[in-house]
């Protein structure tokens, strides 16, 4: 096989090549490292190539597979991790210039679990500084520069998991780990034309990850397809004594058959007036596909101040998590000017205001749970707009209404969601279909997403690099 053909293969396809002897873990690691050095760096997607570790893990995988020890579908598959996840001995910058040399002597739980599954860590990938927690308002907010979109180099990759988004989109890694507090997996996945899964809160351990918000942070897979997301989620999910928020049960990826009577899907139609025309058209076209295997019903979100509650909770928890850094002045060295001041207001939030937000959150979570009990999933556009031009501030491009309510509602309630590609909008940029389900319903969400991808080829398109 010509090496060029590795770039856009799925995890299962790469696994078949490994097990048939058509390639080796070392060849894959070297191939994708080379692709990161060329394509990935051009997109500002790379912080650190973990070459020594990658080749060591690849050689081990090679020996194990040769001896008949098969650790499963990720064995020998290269991947990248957002640079807020600790990897022993390597810089973990959290996307910031002041922490360029920060290192931990242990692996984040998710990195350790992928190591145990035989996956090969080849890079730490770009992130918006401090995962965007200081309120960045434009793309240039990372020590590696603005994340560039593989579909249009004059457009942003999305954030805060910018490196995972553009590296997977460009075929520079087979999959990556990202994180989401409020939109940071789904947005870059939608913008870069890939499939990204935000797991249920507590499904995946956050130990060894930078804290932005204890009650909102989630770590999840960013991949070429929904099926790949399921494979990666199974490897990283499960209880962890180092993270008290983790759910007690593990997660088994069980690709579900499509129910004979079809899925029951709620269509969230509110907010469609605020999205770009192409985003709306692609969403409506996706509904036409979903209608072929699901019963669609219009739904409305329970009436809660989702955005305001999420803003208060995130700002208060981030101010607490970063209080020492705010006090020290180290954040004055951040890249985006607005990030040098953006965390300070959170220091003044009243305890009663934070608690009020958490009390409303409980009501909202119960109401959303009741709504989702009637459906296999709810669908909506993943983002209101395609990726903004590099030169524009987000509000100037998308308006202040760019935060769709399902994003804050889903994150407040800890609900799983996936974004899958569903077409292209202005400037040749991808759009995404967001599929949200009840807490713990990842297998059902993945089944809906897989059914959609079985009938479309948006996830198979390749950017013009």
């Amino acid at each position, binding site marked *: 096989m010509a090496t060029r053909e590795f770039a856009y293969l799925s995890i299962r396809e790469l696994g078949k090549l490994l097990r048939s002897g058509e390639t080796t873990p070392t060849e894959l690691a070297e191939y994708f490292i080379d692709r990161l050095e060329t394509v990935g760096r051009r997109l500002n997607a790379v912080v650190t190539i973990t070459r020594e570790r990658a080749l060591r893990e690849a050689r081990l995988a090679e020996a194990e597979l040769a001896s008949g020890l098969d650790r499963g579908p990720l064995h020998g598959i290269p991947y990248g991790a957002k640079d807020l996840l600790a990897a022993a001995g390597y810089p973990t910058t959290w996307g910031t210039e002041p922490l360029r040399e920060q290192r931990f002597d242990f692996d984040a739980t998710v990195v350790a679990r992928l190591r145990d599954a035989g996956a090969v860590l080849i890079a730490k990938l770009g992130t918006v500084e401090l995962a965007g927690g200081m309120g960045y308002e434009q793309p240039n907010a990372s020590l590696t520069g603005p994340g560039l979109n593989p579909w249009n180099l004059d457009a942003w990759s999305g954030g805060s998991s910018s490196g995972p988004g553009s590296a997977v989109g460009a075929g520079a890694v087979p999959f990556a780990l990202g994180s989401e507090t409020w939109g940071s997996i789904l947005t870059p996945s939608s913008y870069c034309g890939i499939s990204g899964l935000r797991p249920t809160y507590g499904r995946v351990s956050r130990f060894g990850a930078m804290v932005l918000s204890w009650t909102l942070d989630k770590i999840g897979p960013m991949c070429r397809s929904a099926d790949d997301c399921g494979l990666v989620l199974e490897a990283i999910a499960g209880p962890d004594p180092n993270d008290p928020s983790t759910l007690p049960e593990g997660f088994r990826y069980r690709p579900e058959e499509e129910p004979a009577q079809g899925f029951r899907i709620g269509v969230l139609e509110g907010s469609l007036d605020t999205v770009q025309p192409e985003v709306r058209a692609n969403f409506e076209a996706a509904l036409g596909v979903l209608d072929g295997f699901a019963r669609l019903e219009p739904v409305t979100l329970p009436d809660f101040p989702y955005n305001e509650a999420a803003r208060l909770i995130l700002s208060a928890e981030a101010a607490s998590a970063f209080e020492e850094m705010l006090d020290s002045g180290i954040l004055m060295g951040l890249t985006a000017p607005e990030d040098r001041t953006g965390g300070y207001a959170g220091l003044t939030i009243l305890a009663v*205001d934070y*608690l009020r937000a958490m009390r409303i959150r409980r009501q909202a979570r119960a109401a959303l749970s009741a709504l989702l009990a009637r459906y296999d999933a709810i669908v909506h556009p993943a983002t209101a707009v395609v990726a903004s031009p590099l030169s524009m501030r987000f509000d100037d491009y998308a308006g202040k209404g760019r935060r769709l309510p399902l994003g804050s509602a889903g994150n407040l309630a800890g609900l799983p969601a996936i974004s899958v590609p569903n077409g292209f909008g202005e400037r040749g940029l991808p759009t995404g279909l967001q599929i949200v389900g009840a807490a713990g319903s990842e297998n059902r969400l993945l089944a809906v997403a897989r059914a959609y991808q079985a009938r479309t080829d948006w996830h198979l398109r390749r950017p013009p690099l």
Partner: protein
Amino acid sequence: MRDPWVTNEIERRLASLRDRFPDRFSEAQWEEIHEDLEQLAQAAATLRRRALGNADEPDFIFVP
């Protein structure tokens, strides 16, 4: 029209930050912080308009 309480609250919080970080920021940066404070105060005011009862607990449980 903005609630006068919100206006006063923003100024009070800005003053507390100026006391805590007297030499940290330029006036232009203090203006940015003022805007951030306004957003948070408006969000809090929105949440305060939602009725809650005495028994409405926050969304976390203390486990001893």
